[in-house]
């Protein structure tokens, strides 16, 4: 009698496992294998098996790219958080009738390719771009300011592209926040700052962490933001990876670099899981 559900279960789980094996585990293992090979003169990869690729990553040049890229992504994430939190808070407290409209406004930018929007920002920030013209016309500056090809430009681009990814998870957790808890905190003597510090922030921490991950992780890899706004002097890890595969044709080294990146990202995810578990031990 229970035969049929058993079969169904086996098939479902089997399909899922098969999918994960062939599209996640196998490619990852290929990358792992690749990262242990050497670059072959023929252009791809060959023997001997070596850890050289990982050793090469310890080179100050690459460490510098990683460090700078992490710094850029960190600042962009922080800015997204500082801009996104008040916005999400307002969104969650807005009249229910107004919320769909505001949410749509957050999502509208997705309708245009982010690459196109990055080029638009380039137009704004260029030496003879809109922003410089405006500042010149206002008499605030005498000659165009260098805006493009700076870390600032890169950060502006990253914040612009990634802000919705911060707002949406923050909104989700702020909207779930029971306003009665805030009343209880008031009743128990907590002023506005301490209500935020002791109730709102801890309870929306999973949203904060989720938003930061959704911004920070792509911020490391959005190579076209680096290309278009950062120029050659401000590389993101994404640029490094792309260049190894497409420009330098050094696939084993690129594979090693991506694995290190994946490792770092997994560490962040573990942090998230830990934070989420601390908030709600019951829900696992």
């Amino acid at each position, binding site marked *: 009698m229970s035969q049929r559900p058993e079969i169904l279960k086996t098939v479902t789980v089997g399909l899922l496992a098969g999918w994960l094996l062939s599209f996640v585990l196998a490619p990852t293992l290929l990358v792992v294998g690749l990262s242990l090979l050497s670059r072959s003169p023929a252009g791809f990869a060959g023997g001997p098996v070596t850890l050289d690729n990982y050793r090469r990553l310890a080179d100050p040049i690459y460490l510098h790219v990683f460090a700078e890229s992490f710094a850029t992504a960190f600042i962009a994430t922080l800015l997204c958080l500082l801009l996104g939190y008040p916005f999400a808070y307002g969104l969650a407290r807005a009249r229910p009738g107004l919320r769909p409209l505001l949410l749509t406004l957050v999502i509208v930018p997705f309708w245009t390719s982010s690459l196109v929007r990055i080029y638009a920002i380039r137009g704004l920030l260029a030496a003879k771009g809109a922003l410089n013209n405006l500042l010149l016309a206002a008499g605030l500056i005498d000659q165009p300011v260098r805006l493009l090809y700076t870390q600032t430009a890169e950060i502006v681009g990253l914040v612009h592209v990634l802000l919705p990814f911060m707002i949406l998870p923050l909104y989700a957790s702020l909207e779930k926040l*029971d306003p*009665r*808890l805030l*009343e*209880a*905190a*008031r*009743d*128990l*003597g*907590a*002023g506005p700052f*301490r209500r935020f510090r*002791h*109730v709102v922030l*801890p*309870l929306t921490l999973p949203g904060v962490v989720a938003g930061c991950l959704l911004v920070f992780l792509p911020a490391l890899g959005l190579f076209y933001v680096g290309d278009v706004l950062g120029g050659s002097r401000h590389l993101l890890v994404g640029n490094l990876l792309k260049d190894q595969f497409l420009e330098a044709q050094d696939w084993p080294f690129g594979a090693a670099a991506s694995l290190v990146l994946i490792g770092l990202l997994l560490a962040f995810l573990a942090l998230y899981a830990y934070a989420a578990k601390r*908030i*709600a*031990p*019951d829900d696992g």
Partner: protein
Amino acid sequence: MTRSTIASFRAVSKHYGSHCALRDFNLELREGELLTLLGPSGCGKTTVLRLLAGLEIPDSGEIFLDGRTLAGVPPEARNVNTVFQSYALFPHLSVAENVAFGLRMKKLGSAEIRARTAEALRMVRLDGLGGHRPLQLSGGQQQRVALARALVNRPRVLLLDECLSALDYQLRREMQLELKGLQRQTGITFVFVTHDREEALSMSDRIAVMRTGRIEQLGPPRDIYERPANLFVAQFAGESNVLEATVTAITAPDSLIVELAGTPLTVRTDRRFRVGARLVLVLRPEDLHVHDDAAAEGGLAGHVLERTYRGVTLDTVIALDAGPRIKTSEFFREDTPALDHPPGQRVRVSWTPGWEIVLPHEPET
């Protein structure tokens, strides 16, 4: 002993949009009493608590605590704490951290916080559960945490907003006794909101029966039940048989003869009526006795429609010859010979003279 006033509402009004929650509301709270606001949902009783807590601002009128106006005083600065209907426990904090929240906000020393938290948890019999998360506890335990979290601050007034309504019957009974005990033990003034009349009658020093933003009657439970000010209070305070009658004669300052659909009855009342005036008699089911028609005289005649055995009482629905139906609720006692009246049997219903409640007739609203 007259107790001094601890808090008062003077001509307070509050609207939510076009809905009037309170109108020209006056109330004096006495030091150390347990006052219950009793009324149907939407009568404004929760608004009274929220105004005193500061979670709502009155449109007009003033509220005083310990003789000082609360106008402009935010909730966090009021020495008043609330046990919320939903408990509103902080899910990210342990039970002990929840209880300690108010003390931490007051920036007390950690040793004092620990001691008072432990004491409060002991008081609600939750010692040993301080390390749990609220969501790991049962409803009754969560209720106690909410109580401890409020009481630990030693507020001047403790506000309890229908906080027992989520518990099952048995647990409610226990918590009612426990609340009453805690109130005596701490001497703190409790304002308790409920729509459950039994809860109100059994726990309160005074009850304020509310309807549509006003107090209909304020007094000790016994007054509310036995001497209701009007039909609404009579019906809200207990099971009621309401019978309309007309005054036919006045035999003494406190005694009338009324006619109830052809049957003359003598009733007692302090109220003044003119001959010919319409009035209502309210009869509590448990005050009524049912007799075999053949064996008795007087009272109201009718026949039995339904009987319900309820363990403690035997409830009977009787169709009076005069028209209306009435419900009786008789206790089993050795000296009552025949409680058992099968459906269809002719009976007479009587009561101890003077136990009827006589109220002026109110036009239907």
